[in-house]
């Protein structure tokens, strides 16, 4: 990145997939599949996360996510939400690969409530098994520069440290560590989880991350479609601000208007 990249050419790439939107959104927690579709459309996202769950055999003709969020239009990123062991995560993603043929996946192995903090030992174990099995692993992880580096060295195609616990809406609780991860990474870094409103998405982009992943901030807004638009604008604004380079912080005033030619 040379800092002069025109906005229209500003794209990012993960495991050979190129995206122009730097906003990745989840498809969960909406009131209806119609609302899901409208919010995702408004967000401008090209990649969406999806969960893998048992089909309801008593209602096999119930509307399915694919009918509203078509996989030929959006890149599906199957996740392992709800998995608390490496084994469950690997089984889930093998099923996802069979259901959709996708190798690009989101790995998350979570610790117990109330924080659902990433279980890093189990995440390492699952990442190793998945990479060996041919998956391209985008990995949810702790805001820990050593863990992020280790996941990158193992072969994960993107690292996704949390801003704050999943669904908490607390924003970026540790921007310094996120920045450290971004500065040291050779793979894309996405801030995943914790973002609650547009300014926090912009802040993540200003730190220099490649993209932002969020779900509840849109789905749990009073007006999800409007918040989706806000997030789109915020991610673009934050990206521009990062590329533009912010002015230095001064601890004294520095007048913007000329001090010469004042009337007397």
């Amino acid at each position, binding site marked *: 990145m040379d800092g002069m990249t025109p906005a229209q050419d500003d794209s990012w790439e993960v495991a050979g997939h190129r995206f122009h939107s730097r906003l990745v959104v989840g498809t969960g927690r909406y009131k209806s599949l119609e609302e899901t579709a409208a919010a995702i459309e408004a967000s401008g996202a090209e990649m969406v996360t*999806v969960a893998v769950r048992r089909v309801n055999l008593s209602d096999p003709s119930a509307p399915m996510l694919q009918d509203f969020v078509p996989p030929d239009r959006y890149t599906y990123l199957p996740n392992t939400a709800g998995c608390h062991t490496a084994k469950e995560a690997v089984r889930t993603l093998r099923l996802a690969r069979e259901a959709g043929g996708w190798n690009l996946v989101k790995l998350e192995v979570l610790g117990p409530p109330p924080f659902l903090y990433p279980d890093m030992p189990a995440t390492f174990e699952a990442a190793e098994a998945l990479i060996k099995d041919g998956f391209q692993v985008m990995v949810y992880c702790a805001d820990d520069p050593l863990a992020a580096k280790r996941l990158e060295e193992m072969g994960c195609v993107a690292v996704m440290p949390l801003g704050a616990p999943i669904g908490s809406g607390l924003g970026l609780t540790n921007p310094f560590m996120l920045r450290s991860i971004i500065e040291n990474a050779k793979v894309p870094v996405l801030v995943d989880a914790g973002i609650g409103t547009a300014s926090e998405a912009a802040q993540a982009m200003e730190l220099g991350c490649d993209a932002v992943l969020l779900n509840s901030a849109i789905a749990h807004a009073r007006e999800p479609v409007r918040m989706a638009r806000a997030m789109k604008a915020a991610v673009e604004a934050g990206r521009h601000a990062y590329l533009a380079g912010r002015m230095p912080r001064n601890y004294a005033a520095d007048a913007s208007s000329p001090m010469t030619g004042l009337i007397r």
Partner: protein
Amino acid sequence: MPGTLSQAPPSAMAITVNGEARSLPASLPLSDFLAQAGLDLRKVAVERNEEIVPRSAYATTLLEPGDQLEIVHFIGGG
């Protein structure tokens, strides 16, 4: 109605599907079971006894007593 699951003969075959016990009248190919369940095969994936069954093998996979099936699809998630 003859042939319904609830009236299966004593020789019926018990399997588990998505954690629920089911009784089948006889052994049958997985493809038949999925068709009878009314599922859109393009949108699901199947694990049998913790092993993925590739779509190409549905027709040749004969269900056996005690089989544990997991049938999944994509839903909204973050």
